[in-house]
């Protein structure tokens, strides 16, 4: 049952920024037209002159239609024009904070590693949300985990750890594809190498197509001075990588990313 609730919550978050149903605006003719303009806008190539023009029309018709600000902002974000992105997304958030705070927070983390900004947005969302705060835009992380990752990056590791365990031990949430990988790295950074290894073990059970996990397993064994396992896991990390088994993202570097060069350098620097 819990799993089903989790899946429902996950799907709900995926549709959070899905296209709106214009019929619900029928009582307000201008906003209804605005919504229809937005639907026209998304038929064009994202970021194209025509698409942006229709979003402008949509905004002019109903200036509290947050969806059009958010969608108009997206190509600026993806193409590195962050000042313009922020102006537009701030308007969407001001109109509908419950819908867009988590989204903005995630984008700040994914595209700019703006940890403080993400924390501010997700904490604000938590204050105004009575139910589950949902998932990030890519669906990879629950926003609680994104929050924990940000606290870790600004040095509040104990706080990050507390959020991680609270989330992972909660009855209403579930473990996602990369949660134990990041928790394992957190434990590793705290010097808890045996705990880190347990996390990586869980990570492999959850999702065993990442060379990155074996890289950190190797590093934990090195700290524990178990040389043979260090070497074996480093070789495994390299093999996984060479088979294409590593994390990728279309837009940005993933969090706690390990590259092939990191594995090769580790091999070179610690040649036994």
């Amino acid at each position: 049952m819990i799993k089903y609730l989790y899946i429902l919550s996950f799907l709900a978050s995926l549709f959070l920024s899905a296209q709106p149903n214009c019929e619900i605006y029928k009582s307000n003719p201008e906003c209804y037209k605005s919504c229809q303009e937005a639907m026209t806008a998304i038929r064009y190539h994202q970021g194209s002159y025509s698409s942006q023009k229709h979003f402008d029309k949509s905004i002019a018709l109903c200036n509290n239609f947050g969806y059009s600000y958010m969608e108009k902002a997206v190509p600026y974000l993806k193409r590195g024009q962050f000042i313009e992105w922020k102006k537009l997304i701030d308007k969407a958030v001001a109109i509908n904070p419950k819908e867009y705070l988590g989204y903005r927070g995630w984008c700040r983390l994914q595209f700019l590693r703006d940890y403080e900004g993400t924390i501010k947005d997700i904490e604000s969302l938590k204050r105004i949300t009575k139910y589950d705060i949902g998932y990030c835009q890519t669906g990879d992380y629950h926003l609680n985990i994104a929050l924990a990752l940000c606290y870790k990056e600004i040095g509040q590791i104990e706080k990050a750890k507390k959020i991680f365990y609270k989330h992972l031990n909660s009855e209403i949430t579930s473990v996602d594809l990369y949660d134990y990988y990041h928790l394992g790295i957190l434990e590793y950074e705290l010097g808890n190498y045996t705990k880190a290894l347990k996390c990586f073990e869980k990570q492999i059970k959850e999702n065993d197509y990442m060379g990155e996990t074996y890289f950190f397993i190797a590093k934990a064994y090195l700290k524990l001075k178990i040389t043979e396992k260090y070497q074996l896991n480093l070789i495994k990390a390299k093999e996984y990588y060479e088979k294409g088994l590593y994390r990728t993202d279309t837009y940005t570097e993933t969090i706690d990313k390990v590259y092939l060069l990191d594995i090769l350098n580790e091999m070179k620097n610690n040649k036994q």
Partner: protein
Amino acid sequence: MKYSIIIFALLLFRSSLAQNKYIDVGDIQFNTSTDNVNFKMCDENNIKQYYSRYSSDNPAGYKGEKRNMEKPFLQNYKYPISKTQNGYITIRFIVNCYGESDRFRVEEMDFSYQSKKFNSKISSQLLNITKQLKNWIPRNGNGQNYDFYQYLTFKIKDGQIIKILP
């Protein structure tokens, strides 16, 4: 003579209006004062984004992945610690189908996403190193290479590079 100058100026104005009329978000148009006139593209009307791809394509990238691209910045960038130099510097540019780059544009902002000006020694170093990156891999599909838009964002704290994105 006076009239010919006015007519010429009007024509230039009209042509620049026409040029700007239908541009997409992020498009970088040729600027005679900053861009290399010899920079050639395979198809100027079909410049892809670094992230756009079809499943059968080999995506755009950098030889040795991002870690290799970061190296010259981490090795060559030098600036003393300065409490006033904080924020992001983004350099947008085009990589042509041969892996060469040009049309660099710089945008600077503080941590509140407000436009700001960094010390020019910071931005010029980042721009110069970006211009020297030689290992770009163009997107390839159906045996054909494509020109593409790329950007690099530098998160700067106290004058130091703390992260290179994306």
